[in-house]
């Protein structure tokens, strides 16, 4: 067990993973050294440094507001794991 503050059980819940205890232990063991490694960024004084979010500095890119055809419903639903003729079918969530 590492001293990592990354708690795999908590993060699994956030990421929607249902891991076995063995898998959870393995990820906890593997991620510890990675977290320790990325901690090297704390060496740097970053006062006054702006973050870089994108590969190129662009903002507010707009296109003409023209309606274009999009995929039709039948085509989209063909990839659905479960669907009616018009909708994705999901487990009931309201009794």
């Amino acid at each position, binding site marked *: 067990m590492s001293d990592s*503050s*990354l708690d*795999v059980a*908590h*993060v*699994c819940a*956030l*990421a*929607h*993973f*249902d*891991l076995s205890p063995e898998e959870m232990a393995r*990820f906890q063991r*593997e*991620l510890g*050294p*990675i*977290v320790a*490694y*990325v901690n*090297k*960024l*704390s060496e*740097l004084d*970053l006062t006054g*440094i*702006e*973050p*870089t*979010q*994108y*590969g*190129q500095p*662009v903002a507010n*890119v707009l*296109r*003409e507001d023209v309606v274009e055809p999009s*995929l039709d419903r039948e*085509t*989209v639903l*063909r*990839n*659905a*794991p*479960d669907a009616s003729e018009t909708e*994705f079918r*999901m*487990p009931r*969530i309201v009794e």
Partner: protein
Amino acid sequence: MASIDISSLSVASAQDALRRGDFTSVELTQSVLDTIAAKDGAIGAYLTVDADGALAGAAEADARRRAGEDRDLLGIPVAMKDIFNVKGQPCTCASRILEGYVAPFDATVVARLRAEGAIPCGRVNMDEFAMGASTEHSAFQVTRNPVAPDRVPGGSSGGSAAAVAGGLALASLGTDTGGSIRQPASFCGCVGLKPSYGRVSRYGVTAFASSLDQVGPIARDVEDAAILLQAIAGADPHDQTCLDRPVPDYRAALAGASVEGLRIGVPKEYFVEGTDPQVMALVRAAIDKAAAAGARVEEISLPHTEYAIAVYYIVATAEASANLARFDGVRYGRREVGPDGSLQSLYDLSRTHGFGPEVKRRILLGTWVLSSGYYDAYYNRALKVRTLVRRDFEAAFAKVDAILCPVAPTPAFKLDSTVNDPLQAYLCDAFTVPANLAGLCGVSIPCGRTADLGLPVGLQILCPPFAEPTLLRTARAMEGLLK
């Protein structure tokens, strides 16, 4: 019909032969399909081959030529990494979670290739969702390095490089988020070009890390890479990150290419202990040839290089955790529901059994760096260090036109040698991720083979954003010097 030997046929020479009428696109495409059938069993580059679609596309290309059309890619088959949506074809990203998915549309790069007359002929293997550097993280099959079958082809675009190097494709399209075009090109002895961020549309390309991903060619030589880049570059209303800047004539930029008077920077941080001495020697020898040919070579410093891997594995995993949230078993791909039939179990089980271990590892790391209490300490901090990495390059490119350095610290490594040590595997990306963080364009070209085992080694050339003409001219000149 005599079959055509495609084992070392370039796109440009195939096009010359098509123009002369030496063979038709149908004959060329059939030869590619026959070669795949005969030889890919030993390499494992292709996940699926679309023989019917490819031959139909070839017949159409031949008809277009008879009608008077003439284009550099007209009638040329191209292998596609399994990350691109090609209408009517599977697009699994080498992941079980996308088993059964059939692309309902063409990615912009695919539509552009088709408009130029190129033919998507099959889908090649990759690390699952482009996460990896060996193609061993594919959920479906092992791909071997055609030069050394006990070794990896590199990754994540390993299938692309193996297909081109193994004589199973004339050229291929891949993607590069942290080196996934350049490193497999280096390992297999091909040319692999990562365009500048914003040069090529990503619409219809399954997203891994959206501030880093770029699409680019893996090809037999620099001229072919230029031809493919020409076809796919340029603004796209479907991708607002793809910039509306003019697309230069890349092939014309190659004419009379020379390094004479070119200012070349050699970053001292890329020539450090831990790099294979044979790799270092081959790259140094290439730089010496550039100097002998009249380039002005100077040592430069990129002082934040040592932080790039840490920045990359925070930024890339954070973005991946958000991008891969769309794979939830609802609209496409794998669905699995637990015994209680609940919605929660549908999300959890579809994702848990759909994603492989490397993808899960990165989603976990990325989810964590974005989670409450860690966002500022990790994600935001990494974005600030990314600024420092970018500034290093800006300062360097104020003094030099191009940077020459290694692609990877080693030649192709043996199958099964890194999969059990994720951190060690991540550290091997040290020379390629900085270009993605800074939005640069870069290329790997072959610069010789190791003396002991004859393994290919790549030379990396980096140029500022949108300086592809300089990049290609430099690569073409170096290719000539290294022949």
